[in-house]
């Protein structure tokens, strides 16, 4: 009886195409990735159909689930100016090192009095430390000062950037360089908390606010 011979094939497979693909994907993700900066506060934003991308020069106020208020600003130069004005106003001493730390920090939420200790912590510990957020009651409205001086500082750096763009021969719009005010509220936070913050903005005659939202499909 003739036996059917199964041709012996090597058990190893040519992996080259797979490797090619894997590296292609790695390269793609590496180049397209923008990393999430680690934030000391978790905010789960609601969704909307808006497709406006978050602007460049911003003052950002975050409100977490429990209603704690956090502040952030995008421009490092403006942050330096802001903190210098703030320690002047609240008569708090910061070392040069602490000011540098503030300049390159992300979101923070503590009172002015706690600020020096807060700055001495490293980034990981800041996450776990339990702050009460920035106070904004009418007797001790520190948020108002942060926004007021932040606005001035961001306007100044915006103006410098505008002049620079003009010198480079572009045709810049002044409005693009003005600071925008962004509210990042947690969907589960009670609206009254957001309203308090909004009222601080309105007291400063800053009525044009933006809410951070995640994108959802618009109905047809």
């Amino acid at each position: 009886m003739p036996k059917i011979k199964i041709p012996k094939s090597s058990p190893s497979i040519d992996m080259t195409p797979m490797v090619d693909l894997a590296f292609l994907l790695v390269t793609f993700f590496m180049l397209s990735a923008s990393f999430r900066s680690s934030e000391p506060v978790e905010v789960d934003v609601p969704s909307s159909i808006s497709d406006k991308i978050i602007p460049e020069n911003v003052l950002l106020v975050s409100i977490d689930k429990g209603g704690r208020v956090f502040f952030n600003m995008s421009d490092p130069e403006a942050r330096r100016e802001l903190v210098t004005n703030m320690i002047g106003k609240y008569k708090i001493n910061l070392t040069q090192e602490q000011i540098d730390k503030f300049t390159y920090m992300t979101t923070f939420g503590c009172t002015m009095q706690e600020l020096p200790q807060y700055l001495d912590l490293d980034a990981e510990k800041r996450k776990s430390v339990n702050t009460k957020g920035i106070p904004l009651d009418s007797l001790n409205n520190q948020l108002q000062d942060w926004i007021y001086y932040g606005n001035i500082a961001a306007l100044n750096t915006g103006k410098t950037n505008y002049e620079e763009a003009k010198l480079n021969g572009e045709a810049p719009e002044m409005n693009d360089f003005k600071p925008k005010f962004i509210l990042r509220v947690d969907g589960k936070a009670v609206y009254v908390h957001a309203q308090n913050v909004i009222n601080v903005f309105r007291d400063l005659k800053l009525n044009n606010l933006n809410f951070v939202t995640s994108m959802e499909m618009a109905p047809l």
Partner: protein
Amino acid sequence: MADMGEGGSGGGHDKGKKRAKKSSTRVDMTPMVDLAFLLLTFFVLTSTFSKPKVMSMVYPAKPDPLDLTKPPKINNAITFLVTEDKLFYYTGQYYSVPTGDKPATVLEETNFGPKGVRKLLADLNKSVLRGKEGLDKQLENKEIQDSTYLRKLIDLKKEKEALKVLIKTDDKATCKNFIDLVDELKIAEIGVIAPVDILASELELLKSKIK
């Protein structure tokens, strides 16, 4: 998988003669592949693709206490009262007690779904939506420019027939409720959105309705 190096290259033993061992031209790629996939997984998990989006809101300026001129009377307005995951509304002026020939205001309930508030707004803001449809068609047929389209749309939203919306929230409403509602208003092309403080009598009415 690991013994890729052996494949194919004829390694016959020649008796007697000493030969330098022919090393295979193929390299074991497994560790490299492992690493590639490790990196791939890392980048897939850590990357954030979409930049966050923003929804802009213009709040009414705080009234100047020295300014004694009365606020303009709003016609064609609807007021939404938002509480935790529930939505109520009334149209026109608010009357806590019957005034003249107008009965006291009664709250109507609706919801955040497409059949609730979206349908309601589409009905009430018909003139603007219809006007927008016309403009859309003109834009599609290239009869008007983009900038003209935007300008006309803004004018359309400011028209007298356009619906104006006031939003009042109680102390239980969440930010999600508020943003969902504003989102619906943007879908319905409402031009004037004003979040205002709730009146005490309205709050009472709302509370009685929730129970």
